[in-house]
């Protein structure tokens, strides 16, 4: 069983990224569950989306011990990294938006938001850049599956930019 | 004697009705079936929907598919019937409390959607069935069991409310003006949109007796003497309007009817195939 947590603030698209990840894993024949928790507001606040991947049916729907936590805001990083395993867990943070790196041995910093705005053209693509990062780091799904899953979920006129974002994220780590 | 052709529209085995002697509801109910006859509505495709209260017992006496809903909820039920089967003619019978108090939100939103319903409000200005409590249409300073010192709550003008909320057709008449009331309802039926007709009816038992007008004929004379046809009302100087009220068609503007509007949604959803 592998457990991934994507966190950030409402509107950053972490839920969409989690759905795309789960769908890609499903396309490779894995069992998946995807869940999220957020506050009453549609924008802002700390939100998280979780993906569990296994080869057996998954019953308990939430993460017990994450393998990877991705955080796109300081607030989310502070809130959601704590149950990571000190030895095997991996914390991935946005280099610019998480200035105070939590005291954790295994942290990877990636300027995902900066890559999205400077290299793809819009901050809107942050979540897909982050997805690319996770695809590479998690080694759970192939880039091709992720690519196919992105194409299925995003609006047709944004496919090209989203694939670019995915690739940039994938190559950034 | 003129043949009472309208009698076929009643469930003879459900009569006599439960209304008090002198009540105006029977007159308004008869006006509805006269209007149905005038417009030649097919009986199997005409549905009568009512709420709760004296007025709303009318549905049980009328030989159509009839629906006696819950208090205030006639318009949502009627909306569901019309949307489910737009070929049906749906007539709503409601009262002043049913329509403008507990059903007030449904009333304004029915008008806003402009769904093709004909809503006839039997306005007796009181909660009659439960013994005479004040309604949102009880006139100022008139007495009710829950307004023993006279009502200080400002009453609604349900016609203005319907018009402001978007109804296609708005009219008022009284139990005294039977022919007029019938033609107001008939025009409402003909209008393909939300039609609202306020029928002022006398309630000698629960309202009249508390307000020095226990005699039903006196109440009807009061209607005769104080109702002013819309055209005359418009010319009436402000100082002459005291205690009087207008009747007639107040508003008629056919805009897009809701089931038609939803047809467009269906066509869009099906990619213009229909």
């Amino acid at each position: 069983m592998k457990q991934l947590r994507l966190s950030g603030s409402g509107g950053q698209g972490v839920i969409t990224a989690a759905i795309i990840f789960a769908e890609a894993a499903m396309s490779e024949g894995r069992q998946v569950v995807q869940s999220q928790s957020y506050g009453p507001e549609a924008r802002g606040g700390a939100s998280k989306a979780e993906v569990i991947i296994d080869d057996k049916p998954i019953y308990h729907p939430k993460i017990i011990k994450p393998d990877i936590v991705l955080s796109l805001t300081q607030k989310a990083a502070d809130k959601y990294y704590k149950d990571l395993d000190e030895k095997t867990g991996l914390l991935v943070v946005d280099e610019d938006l998480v200035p105070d790196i939590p005291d954790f041995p295994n942290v990877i910093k990636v300027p995902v938001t900066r890559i999205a705005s400077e290299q793809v053209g819009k901050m809107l693509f942050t979540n897909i850049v982050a997805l690319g990062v996770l695809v590479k780091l998690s080694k759970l799904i192939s880039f091709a599956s992720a690519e196919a899953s992105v194409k299925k979920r995003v609006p047709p006129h944004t496919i090209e930019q989203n694939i670019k974002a995915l690739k940039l994220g994938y190559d950034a780590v | 004697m003129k043949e009472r052709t309208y009698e076929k529209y009643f469930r003879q085995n459900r009569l006599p009705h439960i209304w008090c002697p002198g009540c105006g509801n029977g007159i308004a109910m008869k006006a509805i079936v006269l209007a149905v006859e005038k417009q030649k509505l097919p009986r199997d495709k005409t549905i009568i929907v009512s709420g709760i209260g004296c007025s709303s017992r009318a549905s049980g006496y009328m030989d159509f598919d009839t629906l006696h809903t819950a208090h205030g909820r006639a318009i949502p039920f009627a909306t569901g019937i019309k949307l489910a089967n737009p070929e049906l003619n749906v007539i709503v019978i409601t009262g002043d409390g049913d329509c403008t108090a507990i059903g007030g939100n449904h009333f304004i939103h029915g008008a806003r959607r402009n769904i093709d319903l004909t809503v006839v409000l039997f306005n007796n200005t009181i909660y009659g069935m439960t013994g005479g409590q004040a309604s949102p249409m009880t006139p100022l300073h008139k007495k009710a069991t829950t307004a023993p010192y006279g009502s200080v709550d400002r009453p609604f003008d349900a016609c203005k409310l319907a018009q402001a909320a978007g109804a296609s057709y708005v009219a008022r008449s009284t139990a005294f003006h039977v022919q007029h009331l019938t033609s107001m309802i008939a025009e409402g039926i003909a209008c393909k949109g939300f039609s609202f007709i306020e029928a002022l009816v006398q309630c000698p038992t629960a309202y009249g007796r508390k307000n020095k007008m226990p005699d039903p004929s006196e109440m009807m004379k009061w209607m005769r003497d104080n109702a002013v046809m819309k055209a005359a009302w418009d010319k009436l100087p402000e100082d002459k309007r005291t205690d009087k009220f207008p009747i007639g068609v107040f508003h008629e503007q056919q805009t897009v009817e809701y089931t038609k509007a939803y047809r467009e949604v269906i066509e869009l959803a099906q990619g213009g195939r229909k």
Partner: protein
Amino acid sequence: MNNMKLMQGNEACAAGAIAAGVRFFGGYPITPSTEIAETMAKVLPSVDGCFVQMEDEIGGMGVVLGASLAGKKVLTATSGPGFSLKQELIGYAACAEIPVVIVNVQRVGPSTGQPTSPAQGDVMQARWGTHGDHPMIALSPWTVRETFDATVMAVNYAERFRTPVILLMDEIVGHLRENIELPKSDELNIYPRRRPSKTRAQGYEPYAPEKDLVPNPADFGTGYHIHVTGLVHDYTGFPSGSPAVTEEFIDRLHKKIAIAQDEITHYDEFFMDDAEYAVLSYGGVARTAYEAVRQAREKGIKVGMIRLMTIWPFADKVIRRNAEKLKGILVPELNYGQLKYEVERAAAGKCPVKLLAKYNTEIFTPSEILKAIENLEGGRIL
């Protein structure tokens, strides 16, 4: 695996409704059920159905009842505060015997509570929420796939028994996405709308019960001129003040469900063959309970699990049969204790029943339930 889809519980509910023949949805948006309305708004017009967003929850209930009377299969969806508002017309549907499915995606209450957090606090409201006496059918799915199946079943039961049916979901399953494969339409059994068995000339009475104690009031607009009321009525459909008519009416409402109870009681038993203890669970919580029971088995504890899908009518026989041979039953619930008391009543003293309650917006962890199972075995159940 070509038909495998990643689907959310709420989406599966909408898909199940469409598959079951629902062609009318009226409602009011409310978290965490909104995706059901959103999906129906998109899909219904494409299958010649109708979606309408009403002015409030009560209107949403009234409009579906009107549409049901006019011949459509109908469904509405809501959550806590909306479920409270809908009770008035749920009672109307029970009294006037109008087929309707009400989905309640439970969230934390009372009042506005915690709109985005899961709970199971409406279990008793689903049974007793309206005034007066009438039975209820309530189904509570634990997976996304079962949400589809339970919705089809709910629509079928609503039509078959001409009664309101509650699909008692929770935020856990409502917002969960899982990979599922939906059945093909020819694999489904769909209960059709009941029709009058007599003509008016043959003395048709709209509320005269058939052999299954369910009447066949005609759809509006089909020429029968029936009268439908929320007042107690006789076989003609017209109000009656008679004590005998009232008693027979209330009896029949109960009996039409009661005589089919075994058939509509759906549940699973896991690891029960040699079980000395059992965890009784339902809805999203059952997923965690299953994981805890599995872990307990690995530790050698003889514990099994009973998972109720049919919450109402309550599975008395299932509980009683198991209680006879068990040393104890644990009931984990995301509430202050609701179904536990039903389990206790049904167990009738044959074995102790212990509640594990949680009501802080978080779902159980497997270890919390595991610990409670270990405590059962430690003999501390009383």
